[in-house]
């Protein structure tokens, strides 16, 4: 089964990449001079709370921050035994958040799923918008349909996400009575899943999805349009028309299929920007994803929390790209896994 072999090969590369990314993330987290605990110690000393210093020193030992950097990294990932044996990310221990004084897993818990949810919704939105509009723009190229969609696309590309979010929130609330802020009505928070909760989440998702997806949809649409236009100018389309194939079928039957490939393959480029957008928009709109937690963690040098979130976000992207590669392989048997690189 070549496809299975390709999937396994792709999975292995992804794991390798993830290891490199984790090292990169750890390095970046340790770039700022000093760390949360030494700041805290200095603060405690300055205010004369010597008793607190002991606890902080204990934490430093506990999380082996007194070790050399490379060993800290290995312990963090779980390749090397810490004070309590192997307990790193690999073992499911995400570390301790100093800022919130809680384990990281407790803080990010549901937020992880919400992040996945928001991004999946955004991807669906991108495809649902870009596919019909791109085809329409190509079929009716150089008419007002084409120009309008190009204009809206450009505007989506040029408007800063976060402002679009604020403005849409304001007008959405004013004219369509859409809820403001959050991913669900406050009364559902911490409640078990129910039909009403799902509905509340869906309504709250409308604006974030729109905001996060617009620029991606615009780029995607332009690409589909260009591909389809290339394809439509080929002689076989003329032949089909000459033989009396209807206009809709003459586009959908073959040209669209050929133009569709880059569309799927492009998800690798799309995903990083979507996730970037979701982090930013979450901060502005107060969505319960990991975005706001990341910002706080970065501002307070809460290294385990920030490191884990960065790693999670990168992992999400890598998994998405991998899935799209495998899907592409299924979709187009012409693509060979060996010489995949150009």
């Amino acid at each position, binding site marked *: 089964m070549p496809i299975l072999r390709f999937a396994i090969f792709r999975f292995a590369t992804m794991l390798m*990449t993830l290891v*490199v*990314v984790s090292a*990169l*993330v750890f390095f*970046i*987290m340790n*770039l*700022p*001079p000093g760390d949360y605990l030494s700041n805290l110690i200095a603060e405690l000393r300055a205010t004369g709370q010597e008793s607190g210093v002991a606890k902080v020193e204990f934490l430093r030992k506990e999380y082996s921050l007194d070790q050399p950097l490379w060993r800290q990294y290995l312990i963090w990932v779980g390749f090397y035994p810490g004070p309590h044996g192997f307990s790193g990310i690999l073992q499911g221990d995400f570390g301790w958040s100093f800022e919130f004084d809680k384990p990281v897993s407790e803080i990010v818990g549901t937020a992880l799923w919400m992040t996945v949810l928001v991004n999946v919704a955004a991807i669906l939105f991108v495809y649902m918008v870009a596919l019909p509009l791109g085809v329409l723009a190509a079929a009716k190229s150089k008419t007002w349909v084409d120009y309008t969609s190009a204009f809206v696309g*450009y*505007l989506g*590309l*040029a*408007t*800063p*996400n*976060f*402002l679009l979010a*604020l*403005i849409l*929130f*304001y007008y959405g609330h004013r004219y369509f009575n859409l809820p*403001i802020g959050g991913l669900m009505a406050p009364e559902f928070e911490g409640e078990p899943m129910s039909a009403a909760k799902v509905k509340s989440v869906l309504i709250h998702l409308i604006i974030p999805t729109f905001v996060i997806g617009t620029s991606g949809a615009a780029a995607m649409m332009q690409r589909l349009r260009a591909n389809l236009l290339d394809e439509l100018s080929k002689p076989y389309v003329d032949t089909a028309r000459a033989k009396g194939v209807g206009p809709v079928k003459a586009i959908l039957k073959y040209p669209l299929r050929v133009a569709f490939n880059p569309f799927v393959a492009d998800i*690798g*480029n799309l*995903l*990083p*920007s979507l*996730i*970037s*957008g979701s*982090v*930013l928009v979450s*901060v*502005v709109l107060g969505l319960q994803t990991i975005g706001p937690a*990341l*910002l706080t963690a*970065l*501002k307070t*040098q809460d290294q385990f929390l*920030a490191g884990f*979130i*960065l790693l999670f*976000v*990168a992992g999400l*992207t*890598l998994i998405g*790209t991998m899935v799209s590669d495998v899907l592409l392989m299924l979709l187009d048997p012409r693509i060979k896994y060996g010489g995949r*690189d*150009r």
Partner: protein
Amino acid sequence: MTQLPDEHFVDTAPYDPEEERSKPARPDLDAPNWLLIWRKFRRHKLGLISALFLAVSYLMIPFAGFIAPYTANERNPDHIYAAPQMVRLFHEGKFIGPFVYPENAVRDLEQFRWRYPSDRENPAKLEFFCEGGTHYFLALFKTNRHLFCAPEGATVFLWGADRLGRDVFSRIFYGAQLSMTVGLIGITVSFILGISIGGIAGYFGGAIDWFVNRIIEILRSIPELPLWLALSAAVPSHWGPVAVFFIISIILGLLDWPGLARAVRSKFLSLREEEFVRAAEMMGAKPSRVIRKHLLPNFSSHLIASAMLSIPAMILGETALSFLGLGLRAPAVSWGVMLNDAQNLASIEIYPWTAIPMLPVIFVVLAFNFLGDALRDSLDPYSHD
């Protein structure tokens, strides 16, 4: 045409050596390269307008202090959140030249905010080339001349005032100085890295190529913004605004090069097989010379176009970072720093003018996009439409 006695035909017209020269097949293509590019570029109306707009905007940057009626951080505690003022020409139906109605703060105890009703009785004529706060003209001469300003007792807030009573209009001009140059520095960093790394990978191939390719793949697969955030959070908080500005633009450039390097690399892979490269190598040119003199000029046009398309991403990046409070910090003025004030729904609803800095962002980003598209089309003058 005459017939000689020996039955030959001879043309009577005088001999013209010019006739002998072969004419180019397309005389309209027989022009210097820049002319061909210009002819093609001229047809892109949007690109042309964008180029003009950007040129004017960049030309205005050194004159920001002169055009702006106020200085960047000049506070007017009596006019906090003052609404935009109109410059009028007619007072009670009579033309008296550009003037504003002075506004005085009145407490609104119902909504607990200041209101600024305009005093319709006393039009205050605008002064031109007047004296105001000191600024550096062309960044060299200290002066206090401004293009226009309000007379004593009146204010001229064309686009309103923010939460400290600072003039939004003036601050947009000052903000342009940072916001519009951040992309230029970033793109320089990204270009140097992208061309040298991509060039080396493409030219030498083999293990280096494999290694560079993995790095590019890894960097491209990580979402940019969280990485930007993490890197800028690492900037020490005690650094001055200028240092922060440079480091932020370098951070923006540091994460942008993989895309460029990848393009350079694939182009090099195909170009290095060409005869002219082999010829240069045989004549003993060093790799660095082959790359610089023989390979790069071959697709400089492509590079310029992709630069134009990368700058907007950096401008938006700076805006986002500053907006989140991790980029430039006050007292530095950039569009992102200004938008930081418009971060909540209340300001969008009550003081919508605090979000005005969004307009220059949109216009500049759009202009770079259009210009880049037009350049990409026209920089290769021999391609067909």
